[in-house]
């Protein structure tokens, strides 16, 4: 154990590495969108639960408009890290952070940062579909209505476009006023994605969005992720390496709270630089 830690530690602490990867990405972009700053970047970012350090010194960037997958064995801190990006860790007692985590260059953990605004810009989809026990329409409209009164026609438009983006419109357009709890698991998860999209976020966090779904629904959600990339910066935590390789542009491998390796998905899966990464993706542990 000690041995492997020593081996991987230089990787995590290499401050220059993350930007260089990013630069690398920019250089290789094939579409014609101009290169831009990363949407979310972490520098020496740590998370502690009381005295236990769950995320250690992470340096990485989430490229704008791209899908970044975070993989790693259970309890490696990947979910914890993801949840920090929209401050969901605020609700965990004794959870403290150090280092820098920035959204568009603004520290997410700044004392005077507006958490409500942050969460609107950084949407989240959870492991289990969690639609509110309201109608489908009200579920989608929930986030929009929070911002104040809005004309019914405008709201209808938002609901429809969100559902369309989440590829759910055709399935539910006739029963918008029925309860969201009546939908199937996959539909519920897409509803949750639509709900997140309705408030027009910039970043979308997905915490193992398919772990509670059957293969067919999983495929539809993966399809959806593919369709959304480009417009949204997506960070997805997954246990499923195939899924990571299918949907993501970049992959980060976490192990025991450390960011072991981060790079283009194709590189990580075909040519991992670290032994631990190799062991994990070949299924030797995890």
């Amino acid at each position, binding site marked *: 154990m000690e041995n492997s830690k020593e081996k991987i530690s230089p990787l995590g602490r290499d401050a220059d590495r993350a930007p260089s990867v990013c630069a690398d990405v920019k250089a290789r972009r094939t579409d014609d969108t101009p290169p831009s700053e990363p949407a979310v970047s972490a520098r020496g970012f740590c998370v502690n639960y009381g005295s236990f350090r769950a995320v250690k010194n992470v340096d990485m960037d989430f490229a704008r408009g791209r899908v970044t997958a975070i993989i790693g064995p259970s309890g490696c801190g990947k979910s914890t890290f993801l949840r920090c990006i929209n401050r969901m860790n605020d609700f965990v007692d004794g959870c403290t952070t150090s280092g820098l985590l920035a959204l568009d260059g603004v520290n997410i953990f700044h004392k005077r940062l507006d958490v409500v605004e942050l969460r609107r810009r950084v949407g989240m989809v959870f492991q289990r579909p969690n639609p509110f026990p309201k109608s489908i329409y009200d579920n989608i409209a929930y986030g929009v209505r929070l*911002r104040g009164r809005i004309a019914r026609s405008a709201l209808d438009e938002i609901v429809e476009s969100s559902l369309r983006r989440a590829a759910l419109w055709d399935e539910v357009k006739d029963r918008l006023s029925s309860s969201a709890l009546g939908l199937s698991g996959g539909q519920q998860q897409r509803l949750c994605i639509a709900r997140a999209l309705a408030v027009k976020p910039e970043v979308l966090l997905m915490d193992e969005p398919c772990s509670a779904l059957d293969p067919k629904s999983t495929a539809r959600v993966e399809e959806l992720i593919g369709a959304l990339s480009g417009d949204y910066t997506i960070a997805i935590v997954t246990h499923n390496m195939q899924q990571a390789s299918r949907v993501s542009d970049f992959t980060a491998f976490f192990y025991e709270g450390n960011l072991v390796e981060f790079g283009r998905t194709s590189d990580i899966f075909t040519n991992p630089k670290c032994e631990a990464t190799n062991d994990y993706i070949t299924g030797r542990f995890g």
Partner: protein
Amino acid sequence: MKDSSRKLLDKSFTALATFTLVMLGVCVAAFLLPIIIRGAGAVVFKATVEHEKVLCENFGRDASEADEARFASTNAAREKFYALTDAYESAAAAEKFASDIDALRSASTAGAAKYKERICGALKLKSSERAAKIREISQKLWSGYADTLARCVKESETSGGSYGLEKFLDAEADKLSAAGKEISKTLTEGSGAGYSARSAVARNSVHYALGKLEEAKSDLAETNAAYNVFKSGVRELLGPRDALEKNSLNLMRQKYGQTRYENAKKIFSEDIETLTLTQKDASGAEKSVRVSAREKFSGTPVEKMLDTLRADFDAMLAPHTAFYWGFFTDNPADANIFGGIFPMIVGTFWLTLGAMLVAAPLGMASAVYFSEYARGGGITGFLRMCVGTLAGVPSVVFGLFGLAFLINTLKVSDGKSVLAGSLTLALLILPTIIRSCEEALKAVPNSYREAAGALGATKAGAILTVVLPAALPSMLTGIIISMGRAAGETAPIIFTAATSTGLALGLGELFSQPTTALPWNIYNICSEHEMAERVGHVQYGMALTLTAIVLGLNLAAIILRMKLQRKLKNR
């Protein structure tokens, strides 16, 4: 909506919620603190020497040396005060006045001779004019006497002796009549006046003096009535002066002064320094008025008594901090004014014990059935619903049910009894016990049952040897909490078991006798006691005792539960 307002609303809601919590805490404190503080006053308080007197003479306590010293010192201090009252009331103080009045009466009687001619003249008048004439003549004769009388009354009121003077004046009317006869004898002797003429002279010659005497007496009576009010206040404060007086009184509350210093002070300011007098107003109707004793008696010896009382207040009562643990072990005396609350505690104990003996086994058995045997379905659902329904029935209805069913129909006892009360209470707490025991049984992991089954135990054997012992501590928690509820319930025992006064019951009387019980007696002493102001400490003391019993049981349950949880966590 603007984000800033949303956040403001959020913050104000947080503030409101916190405020509600704080108010909840304040509520609990405002509720418990008076009960605890004043309730403790039933046991620990500033007592006067009278407290020890009551204990020694009625509750079989032996006087300690400190008590004896206190008795001696307070008696000495009181003697000083009583010397003042004696002096004030004694005939000696009035002697000077008496001799003055005596002298003037004799002088006036003797001086009648010089009016002989005029009186004889008057006797010749018609009888209707005669009386007026004689009165007119004799008014001069008695004017000196009347002045002296008025002077004496005034002087006695300001310098003492009014008490003796009043007694002296009681006999004065007879003496005046005698004087009248003497005058009549002197004046009409040998004049050949008839009987009626003689008696007319006798009557009318002292008429004026008698009128003045009445005036003086009523004047004195008013002063002395005020003094008597003052004295009765003092007696309430210090108790009767001697054994003779004490034995002549019936109620125990009259035989002793104030046992509590705070009550003594209250009596001093409300019944001694301020007097409640009855006065007649213009229309002759009596009404009571409050007057300051110091003003009323200003410049008189009574004022000196007031001063002495004030100055020697502590010396007469010997205030000291007393721990009256007997509050819990003594029988009450004279409607709870003295003594403790032992029978109520015992009654509550019997009622609770009886209820637990019945309800705990039944409740545990039901819980075992629900958690181990019942297989869901309609009947179990219905039984469960009935448990819930029984839990929701108002407690007073339980009481009526106990009266109508247990006493009037089953006739478990002839009228109210501890047995009937216990059974009613048992029914009342049964649902609570069933629920908590069922929860405890459900918390026992299934692996226990399976392991017992794998070892070849029958279902009943597994329940008896493995499941019940594992669930017992947790069941105990629920049972203890129900016990607290049974101890505190009032409404069910009003018609089935409770009585207002009585001594602690023995085991044999439980099946036939009603008992006193803390909850009922708290109601009783608060709502129906005729001297509520004197039993304030008992009211609070009872409330605190009951609260302490119930909360103590609950606290024990909470601690037990916390220990269990810790054990489970460590497992």
